[in-house]
């Protein structure tokens, strides 16, 4: 375990030196600082009476502040989930190819580190990065709105956590793909294929009836059954953020399924890594 964490920590150190992640941290901080300076909210006895953004009064109904902010929390959940996943696919695509690059991999394999620990540590490192970014963005917004309105809620944080679970499943596929084709482009492409297929899979109950019974419907049903239900989890994240009832039967089962799916794909990668000659 300690070895895996050391590998993960090494990856995080490398990521912080990259422009992508520095840029992301600066961008999130800039948005939060801009909002904190430009957003003024007038709350009277728990009711949001007026909102000013850059000095301009925004016309909206006067209602309880937590009711008024529900659409904001839902929008933040959607941005963190989908935006965060897209950014993660692009920014993390070359971690595994870099790990496997000639010169570096031989050096790493010479260390007293098992192959599966290398891979698992890389995976954990990326997961930690995505979790940190999601929690920083959503947590920052919670603090900002909490100070301005007196409303403190943990719900947008849940969206951040759920987006990390979703990204874990996607990155497992990207990491495994790198072991077959050591290329950042291929890794990113596989990531996008899993991501988009996951969005479609999340809506399969609505899409399957649109197919005529036959080969096409069977193929679509089989294909979408295999992928993580990314859009279903995103919907659950937005429902939690917006105080709405969940549309899925069991969120825990969905979460466990996506984590186990990610674990299964990673194990496939480990199997490939174990038998590959460098």
């Amino acid at each position, binding site marked *: 375990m300690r070895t895996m964490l050391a590998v993960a920590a090494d990856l995080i150190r490398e990521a912080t030196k990259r422009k992508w992640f520095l840029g992301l941290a600066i961008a999130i901080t800039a948005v939060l600082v801009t909002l904190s300076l430009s957003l003024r909210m007038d709350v009277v006895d*728990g009711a949001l009476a007026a909102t000013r953004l850059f000095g301009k009064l925004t016309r909206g109904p006067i209602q309880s502040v937590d009711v008024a902010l529900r659409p904001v929390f839902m929008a933040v959940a959607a941005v963190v989930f989908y935006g965060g996943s897209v950014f993660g696919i692009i920014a993390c695509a070359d971690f595994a190819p870099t790990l496997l690059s000639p010169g570096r991999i031989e050096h790493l394999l010479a260390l007293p580190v098992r192959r599966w620990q290398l891979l698992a540590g890389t995976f954990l490192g990326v997961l930690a990065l995505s979790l940190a970014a999601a929690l920083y963005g959503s947590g920052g917004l919670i603090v900002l709105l909490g100070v301005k309105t007196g409303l403190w809620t943990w719900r947008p944080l849940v969206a951040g956590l759920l987006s990390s679970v979703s990204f874990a499943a996607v990155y497992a596929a990207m990491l495994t793909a790198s072991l077959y084709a050591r290329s950042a482009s291929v890794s990113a492409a596989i990531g996008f294929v899993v991501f988009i297929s996951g969005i479609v899979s999340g809506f399969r109950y609505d899409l399957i009836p649109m197919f005529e019974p036959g080969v096409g419907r069977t193929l679509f049903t089989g294909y979408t059954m295999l992928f993580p239900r990314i859009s279903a989890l995103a919907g659950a994240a937005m429902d939690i953020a917006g105080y709405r009832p969940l549309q899925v039967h069991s969120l825990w089962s969905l979460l466990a399924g996506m984590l186990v799916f990610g674990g299964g794909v990673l*194990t496939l990668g480990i199997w490939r890594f174990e038998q590959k000659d460098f």
Partner: protein
Amino acid sequence: MTRKRLMFLWMAILLLAAGVALMLYGEEPAPVTPEVTVNFPRRLNQEERVRMEKRRVLPAAPQPKDDGPRAPERPRDPVLAALGSGKSAVVVEANAIRNSPVGKLLLECILDDAKENPIEQLKREAGVDILQDLDRVALTDEGVVVSGHFANARWDDLFKQHATSGKYGDGATVYHPNAVEMELPDGGHVTRQPSESLATWGGQMLLVGDNEEALRAMVDRVEGRSIVEQPLLTESQTFGEIYGVISADDLAKIFPSDQADLAERFRSVAQRIEVHVDTSSDVGIVADVQGVDTSQVEDLGKSLGAALSVARLGAQQQEEKDLSELLDLAKVKPDGDRFKVEMAIPLEMLEKQLSKCGERRREREQRRRQKLQQQGQATTAPGR
């Protein structure tokens, strides 16, 4: 391939299969929980528009043929024409409310505590079936206007012992109440002359005026002899099951005692309050409050919004889930020198208040049935 590597492969396959199974179970659509939706009356819907057009039975005011100033248009709906330009007038669409859940509760309360069914009594004595013939009831500063299908009503039979009648205008029959002798607690007698007067018009309206002058004024407005420049209610405002205009003084009386400050602010800031209520399920209320001073009206709107927010927190703390969910929908929309308030009252709350009427009546009827049954058994008992 070594055993260790095969183990990874098998583990991967098992994990993938388990993951797919878990996701299949978890993704099934959850049972749909009914969302709280309340119909807030904001404008005329298609049905109300058709109803409004059917009620245009009065002829339009004649306009001058030359280029002189146009005469003010009068409402062609006789009930709206009768209203005049007072401070308050509320119209209840009795026919629409009767079939709503709230209407059924109100009906049970009307029938409660009555020895004889008043609806049956009125039907027998006057030939008017309130449940079928009544259309609208309008409450104004000057009196009450009741509209419906009264062509077969026997008003003379109903009022002959208590009033003297006479014709007025083109189609009105006015009933002047007779003086009434009343017994005082000390055994003495006093004769009282009621000031209210009644009139029927055209087989479709019953007007009750606070005094004869007010009654004659209502009839004059209906028959076009006097036209109000700015009617209190126009056709475009006849949406919802209850609608009307309330003065700030009248509205302030409705506030609970712990909101006396807010009531006083309404009195001083609000000029006109237009109200619309939908009773098709949970009761949805929309009130448009207008004032003169924009900043004072804005402050009043904020105070009302805060009061609704506090009420919602109170409902959450007392675990009144239905009320809390409906107060989620409550909002105040500011707009310059006016603001619009939307709020809902849960049907369950009204049921709790009004259901006692129905429960008492059902218990009485059950006791009466049991008594009749026992009497029937006693008469059919075999002789000795």
